[in-house]
């Protein structure tokens, strides 16, 4: 189902819109190859040369897949990623496509079900022969499709921040692995708030547990103390007991990695229990602008979130990105960390294909290391040899209107380290 061709006019609103001019100006920094007339480029790079492995590439088009959940529990989270990826693809097509070929999207629904993800991934790679897939959100879905991508040699661009401990030739991780998200944030809160004691609370599955393991090691390495570490089943809605425990242990920092519907319950009940987040420091690694919609800004204002991207970031790339996103998907939409990471996928793939002068998976995988994207909304990013991104860590403070004030960012890009020594 759903071969979905992106309509570029929807994005720019006709040839004379100021947005289009801005976009073109912004892209001037990119290789001028994208601005060449399409026919000339396709002739310069004949299909036989750029596609030696029978991918779905013609003289004028190249097919890619988008594989996210648009139904089921995870649709809440994955919708933003789909929107960002479609926006990036529309913008790339507007500039002339990749190697002179327009991108055509085949969208599949993983339906929040991990075997379905694997089955759809197989369909995209075997039947559709797509040149790249942008997709997956939860680690469980990524683990389900990984063997498929390795067996059939596909290329996956994975947008979510995750627990690390993975690296594959066939995957580019555009989100942060755990150490990129955790360490700088803990250092900041230690320095800024003089924190000595931490209470770790998370949902009970691999990501919060791995993240908290890293956090605990880091905290204890610096002579600070973890006064509590608690996990709750996914979907848990009653936090009053643990809130009493927090009141009893009086930690300097509550460090939260609660996800999904539990998130909403946790912050509502914290507020109802009289814990004022302007006085009690709370740092979370699981709340973005998307989650704020459900939690309600008034329930979480004052908390700190540790991410690499916030919608309120002030830089020219991000202003253009936010404007284009709202133009395509409506002024009400919000953009969280993962949505931005989703946006990077198609761009990184385009830049890699242009460097490799090929769509072949092996050449893309080999050429990925060192790819630089200067147009990223989060600022400059670069692909590491381990297929993760160099990126900054930022701390934002939640506001009542559902946005964050960026209060801190690391001076340099943080090196991705999916297998951190001493933290396992």
């Amino acid at each position, binding site marked *: 189902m759903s071969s979905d061709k992106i309509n570029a006019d929807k994005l720019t609103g006709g040839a004379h819109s100021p947005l289009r001019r801005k976009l073109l100006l912004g892209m001037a920094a990119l290789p001028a190859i994208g601005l060449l007339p399409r026919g000339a480029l396709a002739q310069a790079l004949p299909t036989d040369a750029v596609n030696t492995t029978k991918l779905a590439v013609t003289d004028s088009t190249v097919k890619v897949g988008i594989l996210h959940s648009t139904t089921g529990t995870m649709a*809440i989270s994955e919708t933003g990623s789909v929107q960002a990826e479609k926006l990036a693809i529309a913008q790339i097509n507007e500039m002339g496509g990749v190697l002179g070929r327009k991108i055509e999207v085949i969208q599949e629904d993983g339906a929040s079900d991990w075997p379905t993800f694997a089955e759809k991934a197989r369909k995209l790679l075997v039947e559709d022969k797509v040149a790249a897939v942008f997709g997956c959100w939860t680690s469980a879905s990524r683990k389900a499709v990984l063997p498929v991508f390795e067996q059939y040699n596909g290329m996956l661009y994975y947008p979510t921040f995750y627990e690390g401990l993975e690296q594959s030739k066939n995957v580019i991780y555009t989100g942060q692995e755990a150490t990129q998200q955790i360490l700088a944030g803990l250092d900041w809160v230690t320095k800024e708030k003089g924190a000595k004691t931490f209470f770790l609370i998370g949902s009970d599955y691999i990501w919060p547990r791995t993240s908290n393991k890293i956090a605990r090691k880091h905290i204890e390495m610096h002579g600070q103390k973890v006064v509590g570490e608690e996990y709750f089943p996914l979907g848990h809605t009653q936090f009053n007991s643990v809130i009493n425990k927090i009141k009893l242990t009086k930690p300097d920092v509550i460090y939260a990695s609660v996800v999904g519907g539990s998130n909403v319950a946790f912050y509502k009940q914290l507020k109802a229990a009289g814990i004022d987040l302007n006085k009690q420091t709370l740092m979370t690694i699981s709340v973005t602008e998307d989650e704020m*919609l459900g939690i309600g*800004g008034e329930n979480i204002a004052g908390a700190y979130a540790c991410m690499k991207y916030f919608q309120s970031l002030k830089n020219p790339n991000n202003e253009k990105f936010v404007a284009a996103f709202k133009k395509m998907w409506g002024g009400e939409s919000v953009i969280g960390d993962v949505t931005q990471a989703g946006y990077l996928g198609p761009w990184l793939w385009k830049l890699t294909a242009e460097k490799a002068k090929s769509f072949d998976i092996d050449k893309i995988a080999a050429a990925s290391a060192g790819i630089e994207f200067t147009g990223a909304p989060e600022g400059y990013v670069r692909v590491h040899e381990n297929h993760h991104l160099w990126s900054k860590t930022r701390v934002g403070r939640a506001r009542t209107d559902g946005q964050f004030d960026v209060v801190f960012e690391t001076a340099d890009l943080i090196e991705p380290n999916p297998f951190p020594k001493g933290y396992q």
Partner: protein
Amino acid sequence: MFEGYSLAELGSIFAMQGFAGLILFSVFVLMALGLAIIFGQMGVINMAHGEFMILGAYVTYLCSNFISSTAPALFPAYFFIAMALAFLASGALGMLVEWAMIRFLYRRPLDTLLATWGLSLILQQIFRSVFGAREVGVVLPDWLMGSVAVTDTIEVPINGLFVMGLTMTITVVIYAVMFRSRWGQGVRAVMQNRVMAGAVGINTEKVDRYTFGLGCGIAGVAGSAFTMVGSTGPTSGQLYIVDTFLVVVFGGAQSLIGTIASAFTISQAQSTMEFFLSGSTAKVLTLLTVVVILMLRPQGLFVLKVRR
């Protein structure tokens, strides 16, 4: 874990913990009452119970948006209007479902289970199409937020007290309706002996429809109240369904008193253990205890004598 605390501090923590247990108890009773009526009185396993709750939550969301944009002066009181509307909306949908689906399946409990599970999927997708896949934020009036400081160190959440009050009110109303009204007599008569109840002139079909509607309506009110403590999204109903069945089955399916007793036992056990152990362990131990007790007493805590 208690070294280094004064007696007064420990006292206030335990007082607050007591309240936490009572609040959890109220939440459980509120979740389970609607299902206890449907499952207990009619024997219908309604897997879509959570979705009826979420319908109530969405009604509250719409109501909060509508009132804050048209009549902001009424906003502090909107929650009561929202609960009434939630009752009507979920109750009406419940009666429609009973008429269109459930009544053909009364003699086939396992088929009802499948049919209502399918219904829950359909409702989830409808919520997703209408309200979007993301969770919505329900804005609450200020007086429902925050906590009451009973002493300097004891704080009790207001919305918790509100849920407790609401649960008590609804329980009393249900008791009056089921045991003190003619209609309730009819419901109990149909439950005890359907054929004989029909023979003495009770319209059993009508009783079924209204009973199902009442159960769903209470689910709607519960959903409306839970916007204060939980999330409102297309699949949020799934968060409650397991606990709800647990409470009803453990209590003895046909007994409202049993439902309340079981909610009390489970909530106190869980909240105490959550305090002393970790959250996941507490859940495991609670479930284990329930399994063991049900092995010893398969009919649940309380059971009515029913002619079969």
